[in-house]
């Protein structure tokens, strides 16, 4: 690794763990599947099926998992983009997030924003950069005049590394993918939110641009102190940017831990498999040590027992038993995982359970 001479190894400043910004308990979001002439509900896709986590002030919580595991649904449900939520509770700075409505909800929305994956569909092609970034300011009555709005938008553009004069009157199609993502970030930080959901915010970008955007997000967090819910399938990216990482599988969190802890000591078989699947830019790294067999099961009709058991290297007969609760274990401070075989891990302490299937 002589070529990639790394800069000084310093972990970025820790989050303020005393202050919880967002607290989610047993969140569920099921999507009905309708069929026939009368659109009868015949089944549910249980996209999110009992997810619990907290995010602290200034913290980045990463969410990883295969496509269809529900990570994106978690992000959108919290932002109330997928009403109604099937079950569970969420509080944001002490306020019941899922109960508020109307004006209260619109006020709450000033504090929670989102950055999307697709830099093409996330910007309205018929609006200029000024109106895209400035819309929130107008909607919430933060600016009174057009001049005031223009000045604020220019400040924001400068902050995300765009040219405040030359770029402000342009339309999205005139920008490259990376630049569009910067516009999306400017829109998200315009209201100075306390939480930003980054929904695969860098997945669609080229490698060199990806790094630019990651750096920008980190820099903004240091300046403005907001929390991120960082959703991505690129594990190395999540590890890099997050303080803590939650691993999701078929609608549940199977493991959650501080990010260096998770990568050094992955305890859930799924996490281990996921980590082993990441190709490393090191030709000497062993290829494919413990591969994951098969594919993600159909979420409409998931396997009974532990949902991961058909693909699990360690699965035993008891993992298949129906309707048994899945125990949740604490392995180290802040490191929790849910597995039927968790007692085999030394030092694991049973702290609760998830309902069975």
């Amino acid at each position, binding site marked *: *690794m*002589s*070529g*990639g001479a*790394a*800069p*000084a*190894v*310093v*972990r970025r400043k820790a989050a303020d763990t005393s202050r919880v910004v967002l607290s989610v308990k047993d969140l569920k979001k099921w999507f009905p599947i309708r069929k026939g002439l009368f659109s009868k509900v015949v089944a549910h896709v249980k996209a999110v099926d009992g997810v619990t986590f907290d995010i602290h002030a200034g913290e980045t919580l990463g969410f990883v998992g*295969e*496509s269809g595991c529900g990570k994106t649904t978690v992000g959108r449900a919290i932002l109330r983009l997928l009403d109604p939520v099937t079950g569970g509770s969420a509080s944001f700075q002490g306020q019941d997030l899922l109960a508020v409505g109307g004006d209260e909800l619109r006020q709450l929305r000033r504090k929670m924003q989102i950055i999307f994956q697709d830099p093409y569909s996330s910007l309205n092609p018929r609006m200029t950069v000024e109106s895209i970034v400035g819309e929130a300011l107008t909607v919430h009555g933060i600016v009174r005049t057009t001049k005031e709005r223009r000045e604020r938008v220019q400040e924001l553009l400068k902050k*995300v*590394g*765009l*040219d405040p004069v030359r770029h402000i009157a342009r339309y999205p199609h005139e920008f*490259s993918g*990376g*630049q569009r993502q*910067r516009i999306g970030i400017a829109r998200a930080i315009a209201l100075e939110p306390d939480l930003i959901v980054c929904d695969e915010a860098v997945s669609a970008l*080229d*490698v*060199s*641009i*990806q*790094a*630019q955007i*990651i*750096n*920008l997000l*980190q*820099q903004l967090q240091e300046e403005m102190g907001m929390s991120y819910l960082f959703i991505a*399938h*690129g*594990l*190395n990216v999540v*590890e*890099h*940017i997050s303080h803590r990482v939650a691993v999701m599988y078929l609608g549940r969190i199977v493991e959650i831990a501080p990010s*260096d802890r998770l990568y050094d000591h992955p305890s859930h078989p799924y996490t281990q*498999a*996921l*980590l*082993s*699947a*990441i*190709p*490393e*830019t*090191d*030709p*000497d*790294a062993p*290829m*494919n040590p413990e*591969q*994951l*067999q098969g*594919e*993600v099961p159909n979420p409409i009709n998931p396997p009974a027992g532990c949902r991961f058991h058909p693909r699990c290297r360690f699965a035993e007969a008891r993992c298949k038993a129906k309707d048994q609760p899945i125990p949740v274990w604490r392995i180290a401070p802040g490191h929790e995982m849910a597995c039927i075989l968790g007692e085999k891990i030394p030092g694991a302490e049973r702290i609760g359970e998830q309902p069975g299937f």
Partner: protein
Amino acid sequence: MSSNGPLLDLRGLRTHFRTDRGPVRSVDGVDLSVAPGESVGVVGESGSGKSVTMLSVMRLLPSPPAMHQGQALWKGEDVFGWGARRLRSFRGREVAMIFQDPMTSLNPYLKIGVQLTEAVQLHLGLDHAKARDRAAEMLRRVGIPVPESRLDDYPHQYSGGMRQRVMIAMALSCEPQLLIADEPTTALDVTIQAQILELIDAQRRASGTGLVLITHSLGVVAGMCDRVVVMYAGRVVEEGRTEDLFGDPRMPYTVGLLRSVPRLDVVTERLVPVPGTPPDPQRLPSGCPFRVRCPWAEARCAETRPELRDVAAPGAAPHRIACHVDITKAAPREPASGGAA
């Protein structure tokens, strides 16, 4: 040509697309060779010309708008000189290809069995029944359970990963000498990606097939390939044995790429991104196309386009870069912070 010469040898290959607003120089002079049984990774960002290069070799780009120059030699014969008949026996039989998106690369209107058997019947002259047996055998080899019954299914009844397995089975069914995989795992999940890469590697090793793996991910080639070629703006900018290239990258672009990927095994405060954006292939800068983003750029970089030159120690395997500067000696400029375009 003797059997130990290269299987595929590109010499100054150029592919330009004619458009209303002038030519787009997607591939702009590529030299590349693949030896029998060798696996070569071609890495680059989107628009760097890596896919177009391989589609040009297969002559799969409609012409016009695509215009080719230079040579693409297959065992010494120029692919561009061939008639339709020779070309057909080359495609599928001698070289097979796997494409990026398994969702769109299989014909949704035809049964998997039909799609698998047609090439076998054509190239190997098997009759219908034997071709079906072979198709089932191939599906079994790529890990599809109960292959006999799945031959009569349509592609939409397969999952994404399964479809890519079908593509691999289809590509390998005529025992080609070279397999070109064009971003075979980009559309798939990480876990499925690992399975598919493993499958390609195992199958290829078992039959001694050469491999060209096109990808934008450095991580993928590191574990899979003997040799790596890095492309930028339609040109090869660095090429060498995998260990040499990852261990001692000499082209500033490669260095930048390696640094901008977060690594699991190294804790870093900040990534070092490559500043700026890839150039518009319609308006390439003069001289070295990377110079506008390059921390090592000098005045001469704007004047002449650097040719590929060997920088390996005498006697070692070739390690070639297209760069005027020796980055082991020169010091980089401080990159602009933020690095907006």
